[in-house]
């Protein structure tokens, strides 16, 4: 088996043992779901429901006239109690539809149809109607990505899952292989590409095997084994590894004739076409050294992370007994002493967001909830750059994180941009390897903000 990869990057400890063999389970519904109206890249949606309205699972509750946007659907049967700003995982408040969940849920019915009979326009309409976005984390509206303005000669299904800890795509790869392949074929048909590649890191041999069995005999599909290297699942690095094409700075994958879709997204496309099922639930990994029962769970969009943690056994060392929780109110009580929990991260450990509260809802792009004990919490104090060049050696974009950091730290943003800040996709490797513990990703974000502000001022 030939194993492909890209240049540079870094080998991380992957911590996937915690949850990689745990089959996907479902958990009970919370008392309330909070569905942000802006959980994708592009224009925010506006609510099409108001407080007091009864909503059904899968009913459209938010829409936008903009092309680059994604519809929002209710994830439960319930009653809208408010449309108001609520905490979002990035730390800001986002306009959200708050729905009180009916104790009695009606099983949603999705009429099945044969997706192979759908026309291109029907596929695209189905994807758009389902509100599908990239579920690897970036949450870019999928119907936009599937409308490339130029010829595409390959579809890549991103099954790398290069972030440590996360295993939800791995589980989907094994448990929903058929839906994944069907979704991939629909995407292929839509962009009229002759070939589909499935990029899988070699730490998922069962996934590679399952896919190979499924696609056996089909010349248009190929499983590509990829080295377990971070950030193998980044689009540009993935295209480089599989196709040996480099997406130029500021360009997108379609500029080199490729469309990349994540595993969960492809499955969502399949479900949207076969059942007309909107994207109102997703699989995520709840894990970390502080999680009592690490595993992979299917949750409704809008479920507060506190509810998921609670349903998954809570924090390690502080088991949750029935009745211990105050369930009369819809809030997620604190049920662990601080010496057991140091940090809770939404997403992967390299690019995810640390959370300060547990009523933050899961959104379409949430791939994991990580619970770290205080021992796993990294120090944030940093010292000056000693020019060891480890960041330069490992940067997958071939930038100079050392210079970006030093210039941005001293307020010289245009020089930080000159050394590549604007091309950075914030994978976090430079911070990971830095012996001076410099928060280079923060410096990059500040540079992007300042440069954007300077451009806007012109």
């Amino acid at each position, binding site marked *: 088996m030939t194993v492909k990869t890209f240049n540079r990057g870094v080998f991380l400890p992957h911590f996937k043992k915690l949850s990689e063999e745990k089959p996907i389970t479902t958990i009970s519904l919370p008392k309330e779901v909070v569905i942000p109206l802006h959980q994708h890249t592009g224009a925010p949606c506006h609510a099409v429901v108001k407080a007091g309205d009864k909503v059904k699972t899968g009913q459209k509750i938010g829409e936008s006239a903009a092309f680059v946007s994604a519809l929002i659907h209710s994830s439960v049967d319930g009653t809208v109690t408010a449309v108001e700003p609520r905490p979002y995982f990035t730390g800001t408040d986002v306009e959200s539809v708050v729905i009180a969940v009916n104790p009695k849920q009606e099983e949603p019915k999705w009429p099945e149809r044969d997706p192979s009979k759908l026309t291109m326009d029907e596929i695209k309409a189905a994807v758009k109607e389902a509100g599908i976005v990239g579920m690897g984390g970036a949450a870019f509206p999928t119907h936009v990505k599937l*409308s490339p303005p130029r010829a595409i000669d390959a579809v890549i299904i991103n099954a790398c899952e290069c972030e440590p800890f996360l295993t939800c795509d791995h589980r989907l790869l094994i448990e929903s292989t058929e839906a994944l392949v069907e979704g991939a074929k629909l995407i292929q048909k839509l962009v009229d590409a002759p070939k589909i590649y499935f990029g899988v890191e070699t730490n998922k041999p069962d996934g590679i095997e399952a896919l190979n069995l499924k696609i056996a005999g089909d010349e248009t599909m190929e499983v590509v084994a990829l080295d377990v290297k971070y950030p193998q699942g980044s689009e540009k690095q993935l295209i480089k590894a599989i196709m040996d094409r480099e997406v130029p700075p500021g360009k997108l994958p379609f500029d080199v004739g490729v469309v990349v879709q994540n595993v969960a997204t492809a499955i969502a496309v399949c479900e949207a076409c076969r059942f007309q099922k909107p994207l109102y639930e997703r699989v995520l990994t709840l894990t970390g050294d502080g999680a009592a029962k690490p595993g992979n769970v299917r949750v409704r969009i809008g479920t507060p992370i506190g509810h998921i943690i609670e349903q998954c056994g809570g924090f390690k060392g502080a088991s949750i007994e029935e009745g211990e929780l105050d369930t009369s109110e819809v809030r997620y009580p604190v049920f662990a002493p601080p010496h057991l929990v140091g940090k809770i991260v939404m997403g992967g450990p390299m690019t995810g967001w640390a959370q300060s509260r547990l009523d933050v809802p899961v959104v379409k792009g949430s791939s994991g909830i990580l619970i770290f004990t205080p021992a796993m919490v990294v120090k944030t104090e940093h010292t000056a750059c000693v020019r060891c060049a480890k960041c330069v050696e490992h940067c997958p974009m071939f930038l100079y994180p050392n210079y970006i950091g030093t210039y941005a730290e001293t307020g010289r943003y245009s020089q930080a941009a000159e050394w590549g800040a604007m091309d950075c996709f914030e994978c976090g490797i430079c911070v990971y390897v*830095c012996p001076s513990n410099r928060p280079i990703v923060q410096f990059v974000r500040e540079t992007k903000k300042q440069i954007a502000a300077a451009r806007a001022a012109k």
Partner: protein
Amino acid sequence: MVDQELQLTISPSPHLRSPATVSHAMRDVLLALAPVTAVSLYWFKFSAVFLIIVCLGAAVLTELLFRKILKRPATLRDGSALVTGLLVALCFGAGTAWWTAILATFIGIGLAKELMGGLGWNRFNPALFGRLAVIMLVPIFNYVTVTFAPLRPFFGALDVVTQATPLAMLKQGALQTDLGSLLLAHPGGALGETSAIAVLLGGAYLIYKKHISWHIPASILGTVFVYGLIAEGNFSLALVHILAGGVLLGAFFMATDWVTSPITPKGKLIFGTAIGVLLMSFRVLLGPTEGMAFSILIMNACVPIIDRITKRPRFGEVAVQEAAVPAAVKPAVGKSN
């Protein structure tokens, strides 16, 4: 327990760190310097012990003092003061007067490092800067010793450079030392020049631990050898140029200093080659001593420009893939509305 506040840490991504720290690296450098330090202790016994302790102590105290005066947080734990102190000691001969060694350490750490902003902001290698500053000050020392002649017993000998090193003898055409003893152990010159093999061992360790790359030492030694071969017209004399003097110590421990050397492999090769050419030009055209220190410091000053001219293209910047992409730009399939 239910009402207890969660004390969650909020910090930006990434939430993982590699175990590498500056202090780990500095500890490894000290470890890598252990063999040559041991050989020098073997040859010079107490005088070497004394010199090393004096330099280490002066390094630590200078850093503490400057940090205190400049109101900066203490950074002794990064270990860079100990590395600089030991390197200064290894640059001197065993008979060096204690106060010259202290002065060199003080200037190196105080001026070349702390006044520049501390570790990371220094443009010149602190140990070499201190060493050369003392050499430059020799005329003043002479004046002082003559003026305050009665104090001479207290201050000790003035010799900073006048020992008969193999290089000096080579220059005078009177080389007595054979290659074998130069390679293994030879009690001439500075402490750090006593054993080529011990320095090589330390350098190999640093390369193995990935603290330094091979580019700088290889380009320096390669250039010195080729230049030596041309200038001396003799294979073994070219080898003497590598083995004698501070070339090895400089090539593995000083020129490779993270802070004061270029970032990219290409830049490192340019840097190393330039050091080699400068060093040999000094040796061939000028006096036999301090060539290595001067060459490295001169090239330290050129590092920003080397980094700039060797700047690598960003990912995707080299448009090589155009041919691989389907040439025809056909209308978008199923263009939305």
